[in-house]
C-alpha cells in the first residue's frame, strides 16, 4: 500500500530501515529536527544538523526511491538555553529556502517552563511570518495533559492559521481539545510504553479521519518504524477498506504537508480498471 511516514528521524535509523520501508510501500518521509540525547552547546551544530537533514538525508532516502522532506527547530529540551535558541532561530530563513524544508518542527514543550513557552512562541511566530507549516511536540507520559494544555494556551495567544499547525503525540486525553481548536493532530506509535497501533485505530474510529496523521516512533531510542505498518494492519483487520487506509496513511499527509507547495505528492484513489473479461 502507498504510505507516507510524516515524522521520521532518519539520521538515527539504518539503511535497512529505509529498504524495508520502501518494500512495504513507504513513498515519502518527513524528518523533524530532534533532540540528540544530550543538550547541544553550539549554534553551529544546529546549522550542520539542518544541512544534514535538508541536503544529505534526501540522497540516502533516494537510493530506496523514498522522497525525503524536513523541518527545522531547536528542541524544547534545549530551549532553556535562550541565547542558543535565538542564535539558531536567525538561521531558519536560509533553510525555509531549501527545496525540501516544509517548516518549523518539532518545536513544542517538554516541561512547559517559561523559557520553553517563549521558544515555542518565537518558533510559531517565525513560521507564520514566513508562511511555513508547524509541527508541535507535546510531552510524554505524566507531563502530557498539562503540557498539551499549555501548548494550546500559547497558540491561542498568537495569530495563527490552525489548519497549518500539527500537534503531535496526542492520546485519548488530549486529542479532543486539539481537534476542537481546529489543529491537525498526530499519533506517534511506540512498540511499548506509549500510544499503541490499536489505541490509534480506536481514536480514528471515534474521531473520524479528518485532520489526523499517524506516524511511527523512529529515533535513537526504543522505537520501531514498522509500528506504522502494524497500525495499517490493525486498521484493515477491523474491516476498513484499502481506500480508507490510503485516506489516513497516504492522503492525509498529502493534505497537510501539501499546504506547502514543495510537498507535491498528490492524494490517490484506487479505481477498478476495465474488468477482465472471462
Amino acid at each position, binding site marked *: 500500500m502507498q504510505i507516507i511516514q510524516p515524522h521520521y528521524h532518519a539520521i538515527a535509523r539504518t539503511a535497512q530501515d529505509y529498504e524495508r520501508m520502501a518494500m512495504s510501500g513507504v513513498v515519502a518521509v518527513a524528518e523533524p529536527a530532534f533532540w540528540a540525547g544530550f543538550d547541544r552547546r553550539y549554534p553551529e551544530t544546529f546549522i550542520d544538523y539542518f544541512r544534514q537533514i535538508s541536503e544529505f538525508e534526501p540522497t540516502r532516502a533516494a537510493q530506496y526511491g523514498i522522497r525525503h522532506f524536513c523541518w527545522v527547530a531547536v528542541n524544547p529540551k534545549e530551549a532553556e538555553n535562550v541565547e542558543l535558541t535565538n542564535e539558531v532561530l536567525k538561521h531558519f530563513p536560509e533553510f525555509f529556502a531549501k527545496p525540501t524544508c516544509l517548516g518549523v518542527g518539532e518545536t513544542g514543550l517538554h516541561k512547559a517552563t517559561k523559557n520553553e513557552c517563549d521558544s515555542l512562541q518565537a518558533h510559531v511566530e517565525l513560521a507564520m511570518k514566513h508562511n511555513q507549516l508547524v509541527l508541535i511536540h507535546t510531552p510524554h507520559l505524566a507531563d502530557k495533559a498539562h503540557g498539551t494544555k499549555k501548548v494550546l494556551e500559547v497558540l491561542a495567544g498568537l495569530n495563527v492559521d490552525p489548519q497549518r499547525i500539527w500537534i503531535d503525540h496526542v492520546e*485519548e486525553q488530549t486529542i479532543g481539545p486539539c481537534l476542537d481548536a481546529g489543529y491537525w493532530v498526530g499519533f506517534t506509535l511506540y512498540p511499548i*510504553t506509549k500510544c*499503541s497501533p490499536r*489505541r490509534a485505530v*480506536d481514536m480514528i474510529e*471515534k474521531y473520524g479521519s479528518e485532520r489526523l496523521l499517524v506516524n511511527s516512533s523512529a529515533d535513537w531510542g526504543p522505537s520501531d518504524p514498522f509500528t506504522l505498518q502494524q497500525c495499517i494492519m490493525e486498521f484493515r483487520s477491523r474491516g476498513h477498506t484499502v481506500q480508507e487506509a490510503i485516506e489516513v496513511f497516504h492522503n492525509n499527509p498529502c493534505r497537510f504537508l501539501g499546504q506547502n507547495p514543495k510537498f507535491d505528492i498528490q492524494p490517490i484513489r484506487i479505481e477498478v480498471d476495465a474488468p477482465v473479461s472471462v
Partner: protein
Amino acid sequence: MLSPHQVVEKDYLEHRYMLLEIAAYLDRYDAALQRTGEVPVGTPAKLKLLDQALAVLRAPASEKGRTYDLLELFAK
C-alpha cells in the same frame, strides 16, 4: 537479584502501558456495543474472566502468588 525498589522502577512503564491497553480493549467493546446498538445478554464470559483477574490483582496475594492464581482462574 533486584531490590524491591529496583523491581518497581525497572518495568513500571511497561505495566502502565499494559493497563492502558486493557482499558482500551474494554472501551473498544463498549464502543462496538454503542455502534451496533446491540444489547448483550450479560457480560461475555471472557470479559467476566478478565474482571475476575483484575479482582485477584487487587486482593492481597495468596501464598502461591497472583500469577499462579490467575492461571488457575483462566484454567477453569
